[in-house]
């Protein structure tokens, strides 16, 4: 697997990370190393093997649709970096 600077840039954007020039160079080398090791998995033919996403047989767990107490607004907002009234405040979303 060839890791390019463009791929690192693209993945960083998807992950919502901003890497400095130096960090990108290091990340490129380290990801290449790790993915090279992970290439070991290509030895195995898994075409007939079903995937396991979870070790338990987990199905939807349902409960009665009853109103129950939830976190009060003031507690929910207590750790917010910025708030406005009963809402979380963020920078402008709509450009222009």
């Amino acid at each position, binding site marked *: 697997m060839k890791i390019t600077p463009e791929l690192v840039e693209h993945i960083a954007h*998807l992950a*919502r990370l901003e890497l400095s020039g130096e960090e990108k160079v290091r990340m490129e080398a380290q990801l290449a190393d790790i993915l090279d090791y*992970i290439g070991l998995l290509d030895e195995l033919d898994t075409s007939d093997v079903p995937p396991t996403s979870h070790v338990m047989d987990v199905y939807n767990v349902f409960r009665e649709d009853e109103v129950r107490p939830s976190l009060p607004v003031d507690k929910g907002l207590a750790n917010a970096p910025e708030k406005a009234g009963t809402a979380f405040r963020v920078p402008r979303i709509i450009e222009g």
Partner: protein
Amino acid sequence: MDLYRLTIHDLHEELREGRVTSNQITESVFDRIAEVDGRVRAYLTLTKEAALEAAARSDERYRRGDFLGPLDGIPIALKDIFLTEGIRTTCASKVLENFIPPYDGTPVVRLKEAGAVITGKLNMDEFAMGSSNENSGFFPTHNPWNTQYVPGGSSGGSAASVAAGEAIGALGTDTGGSIRQPASHCGVVGMKPTYGRVSRYGIIAFASSLDQVGPLARTVTDCSILLRTIAGHDPADSTSAEVPVPDYPSLLDGKVEGMKVGLPEEYFSEGLDPEVERLVREAAHALERRGMKMVPVSLPSSRYAVATYYIIAPAEASSNLARYDGVRYGVRVPDAESLMEMYKRSRSRGFGAEVQRRIMLGTFALSAGYYDAYYGKAQKIRTLIRREMDEAFSKVDVLLAPTAPTAAFPIGEKMDDPLQMYMSDVYTIPVNIAGVAAISVPCGITPDGLPVGVQLISPPFGEEVLLNVAFAYEQERGTFPNCPL
């Protein structure tokens, strides 16, 4: 008598007989913290005032004769991954440096209901990603056996605090070995229960299909007491199992004659330190003396477990850690002009290098064009690893293996080579991939004076057998020495 050196089991006896008070035990532990934590650095936050209040309430219960159980009045510490109402919870990340949770996680609720005295919050690798505690966003924890060495990770603060007498027991979490590997490096008992045995509600998520809460303590009996308290179904965690919880402590009789122990050949091959191998094989002989039968088994897919893990765990982490966006909690850069800029700069400022590396790796493995070749492939190999484990358990009662390929390593040794660090967990990772249970029990000390652990592995929900085999081994081994600190 140094109360901080005693076990949960013995302290409870002393409390019941009225020979000591929880106040005395708690003061002894905090005195010990004051004496050694400057060198060990196991704690991120101490809660002495609340602990002494809890101890006073416990002493009142013992006076009245209506104590709550074997944990009542016992000082227990928590990895800083457990949400604690009103007490700062950081996950050792700058992102959550000032986060005060509005509620307690379920295992914390259960400890409090059992009367445990919470001493504080323990250091760890940031977001539980690491094998040495060097990835803490604040400072590294040191191994109490030799402070130039790492305590292991990610529950390194948990293992170090129990080893150093800074807590009588502790809780940690184990996603790929994060309880067992530090337990091995610090000479304490550490257990990863079956996936689903303990509720994950109110535990900061790393890799949700692998994470499991478990105890660290000085003896198998103490681990069984802690597990008995925290295990069981929780309506708030749909992956917690509706499987009855046996009364583990009362089931420890050490009778293991005729049971079979599997020795997986792949766990005794290249990369294993010869001294560790010698000590682990001695542990197998000890169990033979107890009448257990050793059976060679093979788990060929184990060789692929680390590579599989480093797709699945980062993939789940990249999704779980998307919540740290600077909106509802956590750090936010003050001067971003757009929402996107705020997300990116806040996250890059808050997350440490290893966390960013894993988010990148996981995002890559899930991204369009790479998903099938990486994430899809890893899920299939997960099936193979689980099948082989199931097959092995059709022939043997438990498996025996090293916990880690080496004893603790010097601080700084593996920090520049992520892949080398990942290999620390080569023998613990398959257990999480398969979702089974395992325990690490101290089995010896290297000529360098560092402890080594032997790992026992059981089928899902086989904790009572696992604990009993570990208990039989512990009886055969005899008392394990305290760290020299």
